[in-house]
């Protein structure tokens, strides 16, 4: 997808607030997403999911479905073409699903596909799918975490320093609190889906994937064709938040079905199927114990986390124990995780997996301590500020959290807070102020890029990464335009095609810090190539000058000694009769080399972070929240949010600001409204739609202010960017619960904060 960019005059473009270059096509409906790809002879697929959570399919009647005019076939375990099982991501593979769909009659979770109906139109396929009749032999299943806890298994890695138990036993002040988080779903507005086309043994797949190189590799292995035969196209992605990062059943089935019927197949998940299609945030219980001195200095921190997983495989996000081990200065720490197997499909990463649950608990428990000893929670955060990473005993790569606290508190007017509970009112409404913390580790992966300078002055940048809507398109154009000294409008960016130079998955907030250094390196290489062309062209004004006597400035090669002597790139190429000049480049994070380069190209995900070059690198934030509550009927409004963030160098203030706001709003949803409801008798989700699963709507959104504190992290890379995408959601739920406590004296430890929890 090639997008011409718009212009902005001043330099450098990096650091400015710049309109997203995808704007014009997105606001006019011209941007084409996966479901909008049309092919001749297209077949529409509709999935039928299991209505039991565990057991066997004992009968499958597809006659009525097959009899519907327009139906081309029904794919079941009886006729599905071969698909090779892939290791799941927890075991180093790219397959999000552990259950290979339509392999046999065994049912592992409700919603597991049992048939795929294929027809000439969506209407016919949908109706026919309703006519598939399945008989099951159901077995006892369990989706209740409390019941499943007897089978909890400890996670291998734990966090341990000092002696937390001993320190707790003798601590003058102790807090013991357990925090509950329900299952949540990503719910991007664009459902996942696949358009699969086989031409011989060449496979083309349109899919809104967060990791096109990973999907390419997974499909190559699953369908036993060479990697280069698989072409992934990801034009635009309508939101993802983690659920589109790995390979899930609908994709494998669409590709298998296209092989079965010998025609292109389009399979777009229904919204209801989205809830069982590609993971969810698991249910999580965190038991926190704090020991502190009377001033609030931490002496001990003990954390026990139980997280639900699927019976079929373990899934545990290590940051659930990593965050409590790193965030505060504390001599005695013990953090242990446990997985609890339940009869669900596999959970997966959802925005800030591990971090957001932990920052909810950490923000809450620190407030509980502040209340207990009668101090300002902000003072406690500063008192327990970690000057180094005590978990790894390494220095931070950069840390401007103190500035975040300061800027956030100032902009919020935190100093005007009366710390007594129920002390602030607005008419009938109780007012509460609370604060929370945010941190997110820097992740770096190798990336490649190609930059092409055309003789007409247009520049094309290419990389096989993808844009979730965070607008990496624009920041690539900014870096390129700055490096080449050309207007932003001359730069086009092409992403979303697996045949382009290998680049990163969009997950773990790594894209900016990983891709931009590659673009920067490649653009610099291109400038060097232009210089080399200029001083070797005998007809040019700079012929014969040495390379180190020349530099690229504003679209020209210029003599350093005599700036009046210069050669415009466009003139240079025309004179040399070159239609374009292009450079291919890469950036490898510290410590990476040829092995990681080939891993990247093959579709694996070499990654480092938060430990980078002997430092620990995190992005940080502090968030301050005001709530107004009608305690009589339990109505809660978040009325004001101020956040201050250290994400390293901010490339585009406009799009970074929007990412943070989006995270904060998702945090408001987590605190106030979001919960996937399971019927634990039938072991099925029952609010599997956007009317009953409540993501925040416009009326839930408060006045918000986002501030970035200046920080350029020299350790993480040449641009100094850390992470932004998953920073904003952190700490919001904790800050809201703390504000609710401040307003009402009610400590909410179980989310979401539904009205009945607020009755006073």
């Amino acid at each position, binding site marked *: 997808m090639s997008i011409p960019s718009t212009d902005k005059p001043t330099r450098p473009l990096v650091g400015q607030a710049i309109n997203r270059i995808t704007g014009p096509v997105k606001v006019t409906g011209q941007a084409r997403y996966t479901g909008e790809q049309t092919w001749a002879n297209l077949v529409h697929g509709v999935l039928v999911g299991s209505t039991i959570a565990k057991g066997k399919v004992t009968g499958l009647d597809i006659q009525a479905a097959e009899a519907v005019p327009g139906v081309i076939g029904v794919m079941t375990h009886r006729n599905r073409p071969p698909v090779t099982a892939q290791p799941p991501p927890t075991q180093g593979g790219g397959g999000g699903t552990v259950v290979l769909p339509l392999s046999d009659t065994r049912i592992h979770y409700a919603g597991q596909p049992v048939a795929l109906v294929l027809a000439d139109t969506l209407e016919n396929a949908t*109706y026919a799918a309703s006519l598939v009749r399945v008989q099951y032999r159901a077995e006892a299943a369990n989706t209740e975490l409390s019941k499943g806890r007897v089978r909890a298994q400890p996670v291998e890695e734990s966090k341990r320093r000092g002696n937390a138990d001993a320190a707790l036993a003798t601590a003058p002040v102790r807090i013991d609190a357990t925090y509950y988080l329900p299952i949540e779903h990503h719910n991007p507005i664009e459902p996942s889906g696949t358009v699969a086309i086989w031409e011989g043994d060449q496979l083309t797949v349109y899919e809104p994937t967060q990791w096109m190189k990973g999907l390419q590799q997974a499909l190559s292995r699953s369908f036993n064709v060479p990697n280069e035969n698989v072409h992934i196209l990801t034009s635009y992605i309508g939101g993802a938040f983690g659920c589109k990062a790995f390979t899930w059943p609908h994709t494998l089935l669409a590709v298998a079905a296209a092989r079965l019927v010998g025609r292109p197949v389009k399979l777009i998940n229904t919204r209801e199927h989205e809830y069982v299609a590609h993971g969810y945030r698991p249910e999580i219980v965190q038991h926190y114990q704090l020991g502190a001195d009377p001033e609030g200095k931490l002496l001990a921190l003990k954390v026990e986390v139980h997280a639900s997983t699927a019976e079929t495989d373990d899934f545990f996000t290590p940051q659930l124990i990593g965050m409590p081990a790193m965030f505060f200065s504390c001599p005695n720490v013990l953090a242990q995780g446990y997985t609890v197997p339940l009869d669900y499909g596999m959970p997966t990463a959802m925005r800030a997996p591990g971090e957001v649950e932990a920052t909810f608990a950490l923000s809450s428990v620190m407030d509980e301590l502040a209340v207990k000893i009668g101090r300002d929670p902000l003072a406690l955060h500063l008192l327990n500020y970690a000057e180094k990473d005590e978990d790894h005993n390494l220095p931070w790569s950069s840390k401007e959290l103190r500035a975040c606290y300061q800027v956030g508190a100032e902009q919020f007017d935190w100093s005007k807070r009366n710390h007594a509970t129920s002390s602030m009112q607005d008419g009938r409404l109780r007012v509460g102020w609370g604060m929370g913390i945010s941190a997110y580790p820097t992740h770096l992966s190798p990336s490649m890029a190609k930059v092409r300078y055309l003789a007409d002055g247009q520049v094309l940048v290419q990389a096989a990464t993808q844009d979730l809507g965070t607008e990496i398109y624009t920041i690539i154009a900014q870096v390129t335009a700055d490096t080449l000294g050309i207007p932003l409008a001359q730069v086009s960016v092409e992403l979303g095609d697996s045949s382009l130079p290998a680049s990163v998955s969009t997950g773990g907030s790594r894209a900016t810090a990983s891709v931009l250094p590659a673009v920067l390196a490649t653009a610099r290489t291109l400038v060097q190539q232009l210089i080399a062309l200029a001083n070797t062209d005998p007809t040019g004004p700079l012929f014969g000058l040495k390379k180190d006597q020349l530099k690229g400035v504003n679209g020209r090669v210029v003599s350093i000694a005599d700036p009046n002597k210069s050669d415009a790139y466009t003139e240079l190429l025309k004179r040399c009769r070159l239609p374009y000049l292009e450079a291919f480049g890469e950036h490898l994070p510290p410590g990476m080399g040829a092995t990681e380069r080939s891993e990247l190209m093959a579709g694996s995900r070499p990654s480092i972070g938060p430990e980078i070059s002997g430092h620990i690198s995190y992005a940080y934030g502090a968030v301050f929240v005001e709530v107004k509550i009608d305690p*009589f009927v*339990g109505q809660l409004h978040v009325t004001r949010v101020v956040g201050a963030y250290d994400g390293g160098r901010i490339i585009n203030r406009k799009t970074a600001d929007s990412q943070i706001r989006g995270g904060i709003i998702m945090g408001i949803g987590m605190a106030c409204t979001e919960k996937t*409801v399971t*019927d634990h008798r039938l072991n099925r989700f*029952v609010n599997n739609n956007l*009317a009953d699963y409540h993501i925040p709507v416009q009326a*839930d959104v408060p006045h918000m202010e986002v501030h970035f504190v200046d920080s350029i992290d020299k350790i993480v890379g040449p641009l100094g960017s850390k992470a932004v995408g998953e920073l904003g959601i952190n700490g919001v739920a904790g800050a809201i619960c703390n504000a609710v406590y401040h307003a009402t004296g009610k400590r909410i430890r179980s989310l979401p904060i*539904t009205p009945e929890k607020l009755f006073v």
Partner: protein
Amino acid sequence: MKPFEYLKPSTLTQAIDIGRQPDGMFVAGATTTLDLMKYHVWQPNKLIDITGLPLRGISFKNSVLTLSALETMTAAAYHPAVMQHFRVISQSLLLAASQQIRNVATIGGNLLQRTRCPYYRDTSFRCNRRNPGSGCDAVLGANRNHAILGTSDQCIATHASDLCVALVALDAQVVIQGVAGERVVPLTQLYRLPGAAPEREYALLPGELITAVRVSASAATRSSTYLKVRDRNSYAFALSSAAVGLDVKRGVVKQAHVALGGVGTVPWKATLAETYLLGKPATREHFTEAARLAVTGAIPQKDNAFKIELVQRIIVQALDETATSR
């Protein structure tokens, strides 16, 4: 969706004639109909589009408001007479659904809005309302959103409408046209409690069409409030709601309207509360007692005992706001 034959009658007589046949279904705004047809909950062989019928217009004459069946929720909500004389109706409409839905959903259709019970809406669950005699998965299921009033062991599904709560509170009458001509009945009589036959939701005969709803204005309809508590601040069904209207003279209640939403299997007229309030001083103490009476006979389900408390608080607050806003 199952294939259907699309018919668009141009006269009421035609429509009723086609509608009498068992495999037909009327459709107007289509917001509920298409929703349930897509889930295969409803599978009519004939879809009878009644939007060509002359059932439009909102009038206010001799203190009687008439909302014709095909008027949209938006048109009714912003109509000057509705806003002035029937505040609770306007509020209930504007707190319902989304602007997009209100722009097409009709008054007639809203009176027949179906439950949001997830076990009704997914055909793979057991549901007596959808599939008589099959059982009810909601009773032992996730039932936080279900009813506490008017339930039976066959069905605990909540009536989903906001508008109907306001209309029932204000003693609206519904105008029904059928083969035998027109009949006018109190709106409360349109709704059937589930009892042993939850599939019989409405007291309508085959082919009968709702043509209008009528409400009389009074001091108590002008001084009225719809208070709705929901799980997010907009675009959500009521967890619980109350529609109230009060005529208070010299501090004493002369007339009272109270109905509840989100808690009943039908829009719940709180007659005991209304009767109790008559002649009583308009004080919080009496409002609290009225609220207690309003939930007489409430039976909580596994997950929704809080609704008994919540809806009482909503009633008290709505009465309080109404009494003090005059």
